[in-house]
């Protein structure tokens, strides 16, 4: 057991993977000398040198496109977008190229790359630096999508991503980097594609991922003091999506809430709610309830920012209403 931050766990995963696999290179803005805008790649350039920690110009479309070409020719690139909000610049290379190459070319070749980036609110970074755009990725066939909530998962999911034959979008949460946990990295974790049941209770099931897992757990702790016991599922990956765990837990309990920090409409919460309703209809006592970000841009004002995404209070309050329904 050791105390590790999410940031350090990511760095360790990268460093270990790079040590084991000489084909891994990191390509992105400020990943080398600067050590990453959020410090994830700090000092890795000392170990791996500038040829493997490749600082790029501010050219997001090309960063992703270069990674695609590198992945097709023998490297295993980790491309980095400093903010997931910059996906808008890279979506062609990601969705039209990386995601489709294996298919369009009849299975001749894959694109084993990882696109690391971070999203979410929590730093008054404004409308263009606070989004949660995982739904765009999840909607794109051909992409894997990992969103770690815990320190151990930051490590394990990144290690695993770096072994996969297909492109993985790996979205960290900007408000989690400094999060510390006691972890034993040698302890077993659920396999890739399996959700983790972080807490188990019989009154309702809360399904979420990334930072909202912690909000859900905090809310669950609060609810427990009011005699309500919630199951909290951390999805860990959105592609693959672990339907089996969702089905088993919701069928058992009969009430489900899904939470996403992304905008409500046509977001991840909609997919989760639809899946659960399809798979568990006969067991549901009430509609699956979606708690997601408001359908508004994120304001820089800290009060508005916090109010526009789910938090412990609204989760707990909604859960209580669901249980008392």
């Amino acid at each position: 057991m050791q105390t590790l931050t999410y940031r350090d766990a990511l760095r360790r995963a990268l460093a270990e993977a790079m040590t084991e696999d000489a084909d891994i290179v990191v390509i992105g803005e400020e990943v080398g000398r600067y050590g990453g805008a959020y410090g994830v790649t700090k000092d890795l350039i000392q170990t791996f040198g500038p040829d493997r920690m490749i600082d790029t110009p501010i050219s997001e479309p090309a960063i992703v496109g270069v990674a695609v070409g590198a992945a097709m020719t023998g490297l295993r690139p980790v491309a980095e977008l400093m903010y997931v909000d910059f996906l808008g610049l890279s979506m062609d290379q990601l969705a039209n190229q990386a995601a489709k190459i294996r298919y369009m070319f009849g299975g001749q070749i894959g694109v084993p790359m990882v696109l690391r980036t971070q999203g979410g609110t929590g730093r008054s970074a404004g409308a263009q630096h606070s989004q949660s755009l995982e739904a765009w990725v999840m909607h794109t066939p051909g992409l894997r999508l990992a969103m770690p909530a815990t320190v151990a998962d930051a490590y394990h999911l990144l290690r695993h991503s770096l072994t996969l034959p297909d492109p993985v979008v790996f979205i960290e949460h900007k408000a989690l980097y400094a999060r510390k946990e006691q972890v034993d990295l040698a302890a077993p974790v659920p396999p890739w594609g399996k959700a983790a049941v972080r807490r188990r209770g019989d009154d309702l099931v809360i399904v979420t991922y990334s930072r909202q897992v912690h909000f859900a757990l905090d809310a669950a702790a609060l609810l427990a003091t009011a005699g309500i016991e919630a199951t909290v599922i951390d999805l860990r990956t959105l592609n693959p999506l672990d339907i089996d765990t969702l089905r088993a837990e919701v069928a058992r309990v009969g009430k489900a809430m899904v939470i996403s920090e992304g905008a409500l409409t046509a977001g991840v919460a909609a997919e989760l709610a639809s899946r659960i309703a399809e798979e568990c209809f006969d067991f549901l006592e009430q509609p699956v309830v979606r708690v997601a970000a408001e359908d508004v841009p994120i304001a820089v004002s800290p009060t508005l920012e916090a109010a526009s995404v789910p938090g412990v209070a609204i989760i707990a309050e909604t859960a209580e209403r669901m249980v008392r329904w």
Partner: protein
Amino acid sequence: MQDAGAGQGLEARAGDIGGNRALADLYRTMRRIRSFEERVGELFLRGESAGSMLHLSIGEEAAAAGVCAAMRPHDTFTTHHRGHGIFLARGADPRRMMAEIAGKQDGYCQGKGGSMHIADMGLGHLGANAIVGGGIPAVVGAGLSSKCKALGSVSVAFFGDGAMQQGVLYESMNMAALWDLPVLFVCINNQYGMGTRVDQATRATDFEKRAQAFGLNGRAVDGLDVEAVRQIAGDMADAARAGRPGFLTVSCYRFFGHARMDKSPYRDVAEEAEGRKKDPVAFARDRLLAEALADAATLDQLDAEIGREMDASIDFAIAAEVPGPEAMFRDVFAAGEPQPEPLRTRLDRVLARR
């Protein structure tokens, strides 16, 4: 004098100082920028800013003052994330700017935009941008409006050297040239994009040559000398107004870290000391004194007066109200149009069935 600058930035106020209206006026603008940015740093240290993504333009005052002095009242512009100085040079009210940087209701954008999304249609400020290069094509659109509607206005895109590697710049320059638009692209080359020195981002640092290769009037100027900047920007704005779009790169040095948390460990003390010698404010002051256009006492007095003005902007920002919760749903769409439904309203309906 306390509220000088409020809406007055487009007017010369240099009569106060000396004979050379131009330089004195430019000095005053640059000093106001410098003082304002110092106060932004203070606001952050006092824990009153909205977040820490604050990018100071200290060292870059000549680009802002010189180019804005070449602009006319109906001209429009966009800026990058390091745009406080440009907006001030254009005539912004420092109090409303500071309030915006604090995320307050009385700010230019009611606290929703903050430092990186400040804008003011009254002054033709079509917006700062947190996407490097993101505001560049908009000026081509503004140039198109100007041409289509014969407005006579020029539109200016301000951006950093980092944006020179964003593809949309070349698409935008190409269109401006193709359509003979009244557009000016201004690259404020402060030698760094975050921790990346400009020659670590490209092999080709003579940016004006790129613009020339796209058919623009591509020029370079040293951002130490504000009069030189104003002169060339004036010529280029005239040419742009006549249908010959231009690109100007202004060289300077980013005195401090990228944003408030960055201590620039990637550059050494000697380099910084050398870089900070390229100080356009000091350079203008020295020239005013050397050419006896102002005496030191008058300048000191002006500086002090500006200092008080900017101090007041902090007080204003701190005292201002935070936006109320109802602001959250406002302005996603125009008033009177269908609005987004608040989460709680939906939940009430979904959960209140029984």
